[in-house]
């Protein structure tokens, strides 16, 4: 067994990375089932593929969480709900 203690793992960060890699794997499955990346022009007025939309969703979510921490003392779980809404909006409108 490889010793990974130097990476200072915690359960929350492990779950975070499992979720990220899970999303990427899910995109791979989606691409296998429906190849081509489904390019389209949405509200941003330029062409995006599914991969672009995932990138925008993840990056936007990161900034939503940072903005939440900067602006309020409320729990980050509310920001997570906001991120989920943002994900849905990006995948349906962008």
């Amino acid at each position, binding site marked *: 067994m490889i010793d990974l203690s130097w990476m200072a*793992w915690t359960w929350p960060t492990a779950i975070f990375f499992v979720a990220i890699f899970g999303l990427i794997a899910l995109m791979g499955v989606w691409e296998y089932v429906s*190849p081509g990346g489904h390019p389209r022009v949405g509200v941003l007025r330029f062409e995006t593929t599914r991969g672009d939309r995932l990138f925008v969703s993840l990056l936007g979510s990161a900034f939503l969480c940072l903005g939440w921490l900067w602006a309020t003392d409320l729990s980050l779980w509310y920001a997570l709900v906001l991120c989920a809404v943002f994900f849905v909006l990006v995948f349906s409108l962008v």
Partner: protein
Amino acid sequence: MEKTWNNKAWFFVLPVLLLVAFSAVIPLMTVVNYSVQDTFGNNQFFWAGTEWFTEILTSSRFHDALMRNLLFSAIILAIEVPLGILVALAMPKKGIWVSVCLVLMALPLLIPWNVVGTIWQVFARTDIGLLGYAVASMGINYNYGQNPLDAWVTVIVMDVWHWTSLVVLLCYAGLVSIPDAYYQAAKIDGASRWAVFRYIQLPKMGRVLLIAVLLRFMDSFMIYTEPFVVTGGGPGSSTTFLSIDLVKMAVGQFDLGPAAAMSLVYFLIILLLSWVFYTAMTNVGADKAPKRDQL
């Protein structure tokens, strides 16, 4: 479902993927782990949650360093990109002078960062440096060690000296790849010098300019060695950019948790701005082909 291509080719990118995972992804994951914990050494960690992120996001020290870095990158791009294009346009396209110019342009790029810093640290000194002495001889009160404006001018001129060549070489590569037929067609149409630049040379340089802008933005936003050697981040903290501040926090103060949180915020800002640059530059002008009457 109809399979359109052979997916086995993806195995060819596996070595690169493993290399990137080993050299970038795993260290980045470690930084994420550090950013939510506190440590006093000896590989002992204590859960801190989002405390370091809140501390960094509300810290005036971080805001000031970020603003300084954004201003520095904006100035660098505003000078180096137009200057690089102008020099590339002025360079000879044929003959023996091509090699001479290319070698001269490549020279600053071959010098290591810390050597560039040392050269300029001596060059700009008013007692023994040629530049500093010449400026002081003109009656200008110049001292980059005491005056923040002088320190900024020195760091910016140094960066322009070091990196404009990169923009020049990339633009030059774009320019020499334009077939003569384009220029001949423009000549037949009676196109002005500006029209040739706007509708032939600039679009043909688009891709390499994108690379130049991205490289210069990312590099200037992560600048560390040259200003550190020349000014040490001073006078005061006037040239303390994000990376200098980060090293002070991580190595000087050994605050690994806050430094990791700052690294992640720094990384996300670079990622966002690079994506914005890339998206804007690959999409602007894509549907704006020149019309004949505009030539």
